[in-house]
């Protein structure tokens, strides 16, 4: 039972990683291309538009096409355009924008699919940093005596009592914006919970017989910590990582929304939401759609982490 219960969340993580790699390839349009901003801006979801290829001139797009004699009349903003049939270099092609377009006429679905890679990678890297720092601090605090423990836990308390966004804000004001900065800022403000869990686990392991035996056999504190305590203290880290991943995903998107996240032109789901906030009254889909991607991913990972926790830790409650 527990093996099967653990298989589901692991499968979810696998699917997620595969999605981060493959989803951008599934984008129906070039996510950054602005083929015809005037005609394609803020089309609602499920809109169809027509691409008209002309000889020696750039392609134009239209929301409707009618013929009058040998002239094509293209319905498009700001005013209709007439194109002679003889000027066409290819048949008129109709394309559907499943989730609509933004103010620059870019396809939202393609942008969300291509944004998935950076969103997932940044969150994953941030959690890796947090897990690394948290495990190190937790092991140091738990395995090397009460004085170091008291000091490190005091530091943990201080960072924990700091509102995370303000801390990241301060970092963002001091350094130039980059993906690395976002990863480090999120990682260095997210390790405290993991540190506490590892410390608690290490402290309880240190009193167990196998640890006493190792000490009795002459193992130094460093060897005891690395070879005996740390490997056994990693179970909570494993389950925390999933929960933290969802948190990091949401935190990164908040930062991108605030304008202190991943710098443009790179886009994450948070940046796409931010792109739409000024058009919310007229074009809600620009902000709402990428948020749905975020919520769905966070929910899937959160649910997976929850069931992983229940599978690995007997007696864990919701």
């Amino acid at each position: 039972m527990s093996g099967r219960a653990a298989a589901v969340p692991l499968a979810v993580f696998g699917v997620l990683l595969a999605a981060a790699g493959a989803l951008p390839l599934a984008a129906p349009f070039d996510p950054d291309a602005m083929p015809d901003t005037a005609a394609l801006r803020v089309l609602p979801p499920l809109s169809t538009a027509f691409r008209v290829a002309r000889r020696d001139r750039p392609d134009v797009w239209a929301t409707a096409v009618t013929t009058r004699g040998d002239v094509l009349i293209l319905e498009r903003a700001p005013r209709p355009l007439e194109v002679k049939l003889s000027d066409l270099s290819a048949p008129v092609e109709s394309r559907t924008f499943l989730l609509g377009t933004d103010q620059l006429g870019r396809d939202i679905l393609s942008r969300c699919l291509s944004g998935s890679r950076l969103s997932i990678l940044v969150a994953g890297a941030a959690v890796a940093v947090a897990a690394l720092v948290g495990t190190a601090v937790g092991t140091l605090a738990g395995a090397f005596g009460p004085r170091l423990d008291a000091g490190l836990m005091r530091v943990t308390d201080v960072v924990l009592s700091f509102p995370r966004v303000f801390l990241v804000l301060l970092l963002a004001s001091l350094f130039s914006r980059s993906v690395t900065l976002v990863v480090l800022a999120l990682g260095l403000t997210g390790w405290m919970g993991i540190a506490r869990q590892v410390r608690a686990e290490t402290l309880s392991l240190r009193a167990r017989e196998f640890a006493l035996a190792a000490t009795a056999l002459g193992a130094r504190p460093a060897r005891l910590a690395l070879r005996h305590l740390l490997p056994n203290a990693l179970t909570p880290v494993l389950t925390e990582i999933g929960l933290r991943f969802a948190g990091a995903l949401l935190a990164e998107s908040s930062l991108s929304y605030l304008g202190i996240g991943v710098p443009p032109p790179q886009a994450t789901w948070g940046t796409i939401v931010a792109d739409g906030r000024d058009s919310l009254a007229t074009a809600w889909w620009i902000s709402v759609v990428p948020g749905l991607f975020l919520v769905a991913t966070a929910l899937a990972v959160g649910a997976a982490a929850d069931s992983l926790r229940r599978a690995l830790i007997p007696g864990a409650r919701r």
Partner: protein
Amino acid sequence: MGRYLVRRSFSSLVTLFGVLTLVFFLVRLHPGDVSLLYDDPGMDDAAREAIRRAYGLDQPLASQYVLFLASTLRLEFGSSFSHHRPVAQVIAETIPLTALLAGAGLFVELLAGTGLALLLDRRRAAGRGTIAGTCVLALHSIPSFWLGLVLVAVFAHGLGLLPPSGAGPPGAAAVHLVDRLRHLLLPAATLGLAGAPAIARHLAASLERVSSADFVRTARAKGLSPRAVLLRHALKPALLPVVTIVGLSLPLLVSGALVVEVVFAWPGMGRLAINALHARDYPLVIACTAVAGAAVVAGGLVADLVHAAIDPRVRDAHSSDRVGRP
């Protein structure tokens, strides 16, 4: 109570000291000359020298640190580049609005959290906890800035019921108060709903513990309906540990308030900090960070003292100051 108060206050002071230390050294991580951070491009050389002396920027790190602590504790944060006024004054103007938003958000959070927890508890009692649990998890997975935008799109742009942004005109006249409340509704709901799942989970766990206590069994044995047992007997003691959870979730509340203020253009301290960041107004950014950290430490202290005041077991039983932390 007296000893607990002294011990807990002392521990808060140490944490506050740690928070300010953290801010000081983070600022010193700046790759360039730190004194540049305090250079207003519009200043002449004499004013620049005066500022450098005031912050001790021409002195070694240790004395800079002492000067930073001293001036922060006296609430002297220097002069804001973008507002051309003392930073303390600029921040003081925004604090009432942020406090109002955070207070209203906390109210919504407790209300929604308690409601969700009662729902969770009923489902658990019926042996069908999964669906309600998933609902809480779903709410947990919604970023507050996006929730805010969706609420604006529905209630402000779609239905036209509430204003989409701002805090309304200043003033305390009755008309203004109603207007202020209308402006407050959506931001407070956003902030509260973001924090509600955490409250709900802890309260539901607490309810589960309480429901196996003797007095609950007695209440049940008296023939009270499950509803009366839950609301009149189990809920009150189960709410006690939630006070500590509120204290611990204050950093989240303050972080959330910043995001919500930006989404709703609510002129509070968070929005001030973000605008200061974009204007490269470093004294203001640094001061906002310090004030936010200090506010959380103070709020945590208040929460723990309230908890101790209503639950004598807390102040008597625990000798460590990390009481009740998970």
